């Protein structure tokens, strides 16, 4: 049985249904990310788990107990806010000690535990500072220490890094992952940054319009997105819409307006019955000159736009099936208007729903 389980939960906000019959299971000790564009319901889900929002329907089970109506302050969950939400009138020490004081912990133990926690987040010696005297990264580490020191049953992050600059973001996410693994604490993490989620999570749930489109390990999602939405969200820009589909010799053949595309069957691809497939710009290959028509997985076209990306060139190639984006490393780039042919490697094509 999962540690945390949302069962057919619906949440409405100002008469608008944000989540409908929503389900999610989180296992003990894992870090799961909710990822999606703004308005997809990820923050709503997190606030529901925290108890800031109430479910209209459905149940929230935690450790097999019904938590649906348990108020926030009785849940013992740690919450880290996007705005850090430190208490401005309290020092770093008192901020971190806040939860312990409410739990009537002895003052001597408070000193010890706050000290240990500040060590974990590398902020020893900052006890007497006030929030406004700290940098953004330091504030966020105080917020994490404050949430962790109460030994929460669950740790919740709401876009904790989006107010930090790029370098700090990378450092902090490594830090968050380190602390999470060191303490083995079950964590739900919300972000709209794909790289951030994929780098620190055991599992990622990609959300769209209040629904989880795909839940899986970062690698599985990255390689085999299940739906067109997920594929687009994680960087697949090229899609082929087939009209006919055949399976033979362990591969799928898709007919797209008379052109034939072969897709290799792979473990992560199994059981997909759609007639649509996707490929990343990095996986598509471009060759000079037109190839023979009728050859599977090949499409003739001309270069429309060419841009320099630093490591490679990016081309937009116009074909009979529409425009395709392709990245390729090369010394001398193709010219606009040049005749080229695109090659779709069969093991790189991914069937999506």
């Amino acid at each position, binding site marked *: 049985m999962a540690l945390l389980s949302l069962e057919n939960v619906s949440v409405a906000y100002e008469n608008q249904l944000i989540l409908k019959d929503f389900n999610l299971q989180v296992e003990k000790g894992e870090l799961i990310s909710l990822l999606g564009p703004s308005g997809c319901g990820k923050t709503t889900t997190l606030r529901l788990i*925290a*108890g*800031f929002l109430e479910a209209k329907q459905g149940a929230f089970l935690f450790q097999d107990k019904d938590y649906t109506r348990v*108020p*926030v*302050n*009785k*849940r*013992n*969950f*740690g*919450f880290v*806010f*996007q*705005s850090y*939400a*430190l*208490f*401005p*009138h309290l020092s770093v020490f008192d901020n971190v000690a*806040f*939860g312990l004081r*409410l*739990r009537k912990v002895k003052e001597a133990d408070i000193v010890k535990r706050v000290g240990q926690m500040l060590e974990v987040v590398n902020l020893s010696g900052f006890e007497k500072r006030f929030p406004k005297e700290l940098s953004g990264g330091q504030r966020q580490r105080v*917020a994490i220490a*404050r*949430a962790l020191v*109460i030994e929460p049953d669950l740790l919740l992050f709401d876009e904790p890094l989006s107010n930090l600059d790029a370098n700090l973001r990378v450092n902090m996410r490594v830090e968050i992952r380190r602390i999470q693994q060191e303490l083995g604490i079950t964590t739900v993490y919300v972000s709209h940054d794909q790289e951030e989620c994929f780098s620190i999570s055991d599992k990622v749930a990609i959300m769209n319009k209040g629904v989880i489109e795909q839940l899986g390990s970062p690698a599985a999602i990255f390689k085999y997105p299940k739906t067109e939405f997920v594929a687009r969200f994680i960087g697949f820009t090229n899609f082929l819409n087939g009209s006919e589909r055949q399976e033979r010799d362990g591969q799928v053949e898709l007919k797209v307006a008379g052109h034939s595309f072969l897709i290799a069957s792979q473990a992560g691809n199994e059981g997909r019955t759609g007639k649509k497939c996707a490929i990343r710009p990095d996986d598509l290959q471009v060759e000079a000159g037109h190839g023979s028509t009728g050859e599977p997985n090949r499409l003739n076209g001309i270069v429309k736009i060419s841009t320099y990306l630093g490591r490679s060139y990016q081309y937009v190639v116009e074909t009979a099936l529409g425009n395709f984006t392709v990245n390729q490393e090369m010394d001398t780039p193709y010219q606009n208007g040049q005749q080229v042919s695109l090659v779709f490697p069969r093991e790189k094509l991914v069937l999506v729903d």
Partner: protein
Amino acid sequence: MQEKNRGLAVFTFLVFLFLLGPLVIISLTSFEPSTVLRFPPKGFSLRWYENILDVEMFLETFKTSIFVSVIGNLLALALGIPAAYALSRYQFKGKGFFNAVFLSPVLIPGIVLGFAMLKYVIVIYDLPIYAGLLVGHTVVMLPFIIRVIASSLANFDFAIEEAAYSLGSGKLATFFKVVLPNIRSGIIAAILIAFLESFNNVDISVFMTGPGVSTLPIQMLTYVENNFDPTIAALSVVLMIITAVLMFLIERLLGLSYFTKR
């Protein structure tokens, strides 16, 4: 450029003269030794300052004014803080209506409000004069309390409150431990402004006072009707000093810029 600046300086000086001139004249006439109010004074004397203490009603009404302003302030705070909190924190139906209702005492002419209060509180409910006066002043102070505290809550990140909940704090405890300390300066400002508003109030008081009960500004009006000596000038100077001290305190505690930012 130089020329322009000089023009501006003269203009500024004239504005100040216009604003402060009467106060300067009043201050100077309060030192007049004779029994006639005149400017410029013919000599220097503090006898009218002594006279303030000799007129029994001044001390009496001063006490009433202080009492009504302080107790009314506490009542207005008790009503105004929760109201300001609700108006800033929550979205609810009729929020605009409540906003308007709470601010209406500033928008309605004082004389109209005073008359309405007289009709309502004294005539219909037959409240004792003292209680009626207190109710009137509470109503006068309420909009200022709500306004100032709401603007201080506008800068308050309510995620901080949620952080306290998530750490195990109940709603009431969070309000006292987290919200109040962070809007402290707003509350102090609200108290001082409301106090000044109430202490100097004439238009409501004039309807709500009655036999035996009066406030200082009303007593001063009555005195001027019957006497023409510089006692009132002296008393005005004392009140100006009290007001200046209060403003100085606000400035020191919060900075006057507190009231201009929105």
